[in-house]
């Protein structure tokens, strides 16, 4: 695999051919915020938080391959404010009650809210009515907290390649649907994987909760992105 050179905010970076800007940035010690992206999954580009500017055009860094000589703008006040706006949009378009959520402290959306010092969102709350689906024996799906990252759609498939989760409806009614029959067959490992991959508290395992107390969770001490 050949190596190529490009820059992010003026810093020289190296990337392998075919690598996305997000992957390459990480390896070069630069944090570009992501939410829907998940290592090992084909990028979906749903949240757009990783948006950067390349040659005057806005592009999602998770779906755009780094190219030789590419000049990427990422950490500019303009882009950072628009990223913050997306975090705020995700908060107001769903119903996110952090204090009562099992995922608090491990939630990537909450962590991004802290990182971007979101106090009150600039947008009005939309208070959608969303259903909780608790039919599956091992997990439940709380659509109030869903950010439509599609990690569950991409990551949880049966042995014969069928989707357990899929998008339903469109526009502002779009939401994750769960195949009750296939979900009934999820193994313990798959159920755990579904919950762990969910960036928010939309997919939770039944009968297990708060095993790690709040205060000792992933983002309680250090902000998201500090690992880079």
């Amino acid at each position, binding site marked *: 695999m050949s190596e190529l050179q490009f820059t992010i905010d003026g810093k020289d970076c190296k990337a392998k051919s075919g690598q996305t800007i997000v992957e390459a940035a990480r390896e070069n010690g630069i944090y570009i915020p992501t939410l829907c992206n998940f290592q090992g999954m084909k990028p979906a580009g749903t949240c757009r938080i990783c948006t950067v500017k390349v040659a005057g055009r806005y592009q999602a860094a998770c*779906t755009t391959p780094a190219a030789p000589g590419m000049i990427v703008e990422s950490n500019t006040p303009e882009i950072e404010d628009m990223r913050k706006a997306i975090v705020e*949009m995700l908060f107001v378009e769903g119903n996110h009650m952090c204090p009562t959520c099992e995922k608090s402290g491990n939630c990537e959306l909450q962590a991004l809210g802290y990182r971007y010092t979101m106090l009150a969102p600039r*947008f009005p709350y939309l208070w959608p009515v969303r259903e909780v689906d608790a039919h599956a024996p091992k997990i439940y799906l709380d659509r109030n907290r869903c950010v439509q990252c599609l990690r569950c759609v991409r990551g949880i498939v049966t042995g014969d390649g069928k*989707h*357990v989760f*899929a998008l339903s409806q469109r526009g502002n009614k779009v939401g994750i649907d769960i195949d009750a029959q296939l979900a009934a067959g999820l193994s313990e490992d798959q159920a755990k994987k579904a919950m762990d991959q969910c960036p928010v508290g939309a997919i939770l395992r039944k009968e297990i909760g708060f095993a790690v107390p709040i205060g000792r969770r992933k983002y309680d001490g250090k902000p998201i992105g500090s690992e880079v």
Partner: protein
Amino acid sequence: MGTNITAVVTGVVDAYKKDRSRLLDIVRDVQAQLGCVNDEAAAQIAASMNVSRVDVDGVVTFYHFFSKTPVGKYSVYLNNSVTAQMNGRAAVAKSFTDLAGCQFGQTTADGLIGLFDTSCIGMNDQEPAALINGVVFTRLNADKVKSIVGDMKAGKKVEDMVRDHGDGANQSALVKSMVNNNIQRKGPVIFAPFESGKALKAAVAKSPDDVIEELKVSNIRGRGGAGFPTGMKWEFCRKAQGAKHYVVCNADEGEPGTFKDRVILTEAPALLFEGMAIGGYAVGASEGVLYLRAEYMYLRKYLEDVLDGLRKKSVLGANAGGKSGFNFDIKIQMGAGAYICGEESALIESAEGKRGEPRNRPPFPVQNGYMGYPTTVNNVETYCAAARIVLEGGKWFKSMGTAQSAGTKLVSVSGDCRKPGVYEIEFGTTVQTLLELVDGRTARAVQVGGPSGTCVGKKDFGRRICYDDLATGGSIIIIGPNRDLLEVVHNFMEFFVEESCGWCAPCRAGNQLLLHKLEKIMHGHGTEGDLKELESWCKIVKSMSRCGLGQTSPNPIATTLQNFREVYEAKIRKGADYDTEFDLLASVQESCRVAGRIPNIHEEH
């Protein structure tokens, strides 16, 4: 019921050989027989095709003309484009609800009639219009609705309710539609006389590279609106590695106000199909797909017949155009009601039987398109123009229009003018000249390029219609002096909220928030701060969205804020810094009503 569902699903799924890429056709046919695709039908389709139930449901719920609940023996889809509203849609809708006995979004208790709103059906020059079981009804009024509802209650066949037929091929035995072409101005490219077979013959006499070169010389750019150079697109596709290549025609004109492709499909289908065959020859494809929007289902039999005729003349089929070894044929794939499918990669997803969600790029369709093969997707008008360029030469084409926008453009004109219809104009024509042609001199505003385009006022009527000034895929809506411009903007924003695919956050949430803010201003709760926020939010949605829909959906607000700021300023609270939009009195009353208490309110404030 259960056994009936099983029999229907088995029959339909088998007819399509359990082909996953035909899921849209399968769902449509099942719904035609069962009246809807409910949970049980979806589960049975999924089981018999060995896919998950949620994947079938995902498709059923994505498309406007598919439904999980019964849509009625007669399903009425009444267009709610802004032009329909200008022409008395509200009264027509009221007649339907009064006479049918149910509200829009509902089906009558006896399951006879379903009433539904629908986005622009491509009849803006003859509104109000509706689709009833796929049959088009135009120029509706209260009397016509009375007769239609009477016919429905009498159990009449929908086809038999159509008494008058429109002009041209709308009268042909296979169409028999009341739709009118309204071709107001013919030009040299699309509606000039055409001898079927001649363009393809001229193309195959050259090498594919020379055909592409001719297109490059012509400077033709995509007629759908985005304006990518067609010659370059075909060249990329030709050069892309793949076991086979595809040619796809985007006949999903969904931009509210455009209907020119409908007229091409009616009056010049042979030119279109020949253009596709030329595309096939140029890129090295043996198969073409016409993706036809569901609203134009009434043209399908007619188009199939035209294709048959071309096969008999050897314009299509083996050794097409008389070129030994060039085999090319075209199939028609029906859409199911989704504006987003006009975006080329969403169209490909839909043509493959999936939800019409745009793809991430790279890879581009020319590299990895329909069924994973290199594919060129072009607009109906683009293929027609390509055929004409092969006949008349690239230099001839380039001699018309402007430096950056060669040739002519079909525009669909509707709204407040005396002569709505289709006009072939040279690129570079000013808005003023067009207004004179269509007799719309009183215009207060002109929406160029549909909701995703630009709303211009009098001071900009000297601007030119072309890619480098006011770009349009064909939609031109004239807005007269007595119209409430904010109502127009509101209609457009509701359209985008409805038609966003919902994949990416800024488009899904952002358009709702823009609509909400617009309503706040319309309701008299806006302040100067709200106008600034609107501007800023428009920029966020445009910059952060994944595809052309979200990148342009704020335009109704953004361009009216720019060109008609006074309309907004007249609505806001002067001098107020902030308005919570919270109405204490209304809230207390609502809470009392819910709780069954009597409000103790002193109404002196």
